[in-house]
């Protein structure tokens, strides 16, 4: 009897330590990145780093603007493509599709979610890049190599389809059928009900889905790196190459470590990424948790 309780205590403490250790990883990663990027932050002020547009480590110039604009533009393109497509398909799946169609499509979306980033990159290089350089670019009268923020955005859009759809479907399914019935029984068509009632009711959840997908998009590294050109410039058009923050880290970390502050600058890039993603995750989770409590 005694032994049983002792064993219980022992296990309880081991498990708790494991939990706390893992959780402290968040703090540890944050602080670690901060300390590592301190040399740069001490040397130059935060504003110059963030707003500087010249990236020239050899001259000690670490302007992050090209990378910030690179990340933001690729993410925006992805959202502009993915959000409407995902919203439309989620509505169709929940409101119109037969049970059979739903049962077939949702697992396919799971497959899409399971495909590793590098395969998206391969697809990007083999399909999206040539498509843009040979067909879409010429239509707009701008010849290009295809390695551009548009390619990055398209590949990224496909990558965030699954997370967007799965959350949107979940959110739309929480709308009470009686609310739909209320609108339908007033003589509204299904589509009118969707537009005026369902989407209005589901808005916070849909926003959460988009925010969460955005945070996923910000951190995506390899697939985007493979197709978006990686030139540290501020992209002026869709067909210009860009250089997102994760690609900066992946391409340069571990090389040329002798350049002063280079290491710190890359760590700062990681810190920047972490902060943005932390905030976006926090926002979307808070919205979703609130919705869950209500439902």
């Amino acid at each position, binding site marked *: 009897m005694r032994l049983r309780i002792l064993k219980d205590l022992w296990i309880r403490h081991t498990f708790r330590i494991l939990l706390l250790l893992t959780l402290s990883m968040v703090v540890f990663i944050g602080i670690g990145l901060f300390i590592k990027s301190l040399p740069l932050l001490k040397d130059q002020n935060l504003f110059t780093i963030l707003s500087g547009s010249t990236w020239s480590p050899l001259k000690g110039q670490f302007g992050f603007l090209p990378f910030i604009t690179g990340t933001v533009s690729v993410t925006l393109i992805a959202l502009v493509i993915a959000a409407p497509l995902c919203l439309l398909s989620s509505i169709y799946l929940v409101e119109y599709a037969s049970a059979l169609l739903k049962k077939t499509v949702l697992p396919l979306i799971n497959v899409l979610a399971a495909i590793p980033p590098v395969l998206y990159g391969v697809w990007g290089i083999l399909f999206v890049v040539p498509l843009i350089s040979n067909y879409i670019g010429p239509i707009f009268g701008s010849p290009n190599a295809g390695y551009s923020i548009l390619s990055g955005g398209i590949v990224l859009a496909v990558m965030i389809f699954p997370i967007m759809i799965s959350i949107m479907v979940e959110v739309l399914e929480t709308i009470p059928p*009686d609310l739909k*019935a*209320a609108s*339908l*029984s*007033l*003589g*509204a068509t299904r589509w009118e009900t969707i537009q005026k*009632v369902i989407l209005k009711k589901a808005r916070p959840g849909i926003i959460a889905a988009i925010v969460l997908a955005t945070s996923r998009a910000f951190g995506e590294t390899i697939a985007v790196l493979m197709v978006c050109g990686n030139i540290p410039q501020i992209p002026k058009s869709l067909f210009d190459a860009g250089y997102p923050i994760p690609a900066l880290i992946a391409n340069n970390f571990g090389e040329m470590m002798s350049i002063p502050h280079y290491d710190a600058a890359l760590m700062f890039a990681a810190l920047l990424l972490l902060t943005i993603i932390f905030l976006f995750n926090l926002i979307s989770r808070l919205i979703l948790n609130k919705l869950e409590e209500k439902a």
Partner: protein
Amino acid sequence: MHTYTSLATKETQTVTQMQLPHIQIKDLNVHIEGKHILKNINLAIPNNSITSIIGPSGCGKTTLLKTLNRLMDDSKNVKINGSVLVNGEDIYAKDAEVTHIRKKMGLLSQRPFPLPMSIFENITYGPRIHGQRDKTVLKEIVETQLKNVGLWEEVKDRLHHSATTLSIGQQQRLCLARGLAVQPEIILGDESTSALDPISTQTIENLLIDLKSEYTIVLVTHILRQARRVSDYIIFVYNGEIIEFGKTEDILLNPQNEITKQYVKGFIS
């Protein structure tokens, strides 16, 4: 023009002369996910009266009500056979237009479901959808309907607040007003007072009694006393079949069928 008037008078004549039932159900069978939920339903629901559908829970009352405005179509895996005639027109006919049918019938559900918008927009939702854009007309509709349900004095100063700020009882009256705003002929109530306090329940019941001079009202209820208080006719449903249908006092005081007798006495619930 001439033919139009003559047709119209002819129609009213037949209605008044023969007292055509407002809703007529013929050989209705409903299967949900392979289960036989409603069996061979044949019914004629009289107009300008309140008809209550009673029966133990799970007997198919709500399904019966929802087949009347084709809301069952929306559930998946539902098979409906037979016909439901409203004013002699089969709403399950191939060329029947669902929104048009639903517009004719106001629905008052178990719990109030205000649409996620203001009180004003809740009432104007229906009329707007059916093409009414004139601001002054819409304002008039809101005022008349809110007065109809006795809500006008309570909410006239906060018409543009969200409808969810109202109490549950007020919300249910708002839902009734919202339904009336599309000028239906029939009001369907699905245990519409089950979420309400006794006073709000009484308000709704009195409203329905007032409204029956202009509308045909069909209510699903599991409260016998409520059926006694409000209804003119009672339909007793058991296990997907109609066991008895008749005047309220006949069913409650002098039921013919053994099952009805037991239900009315409270042995089955």
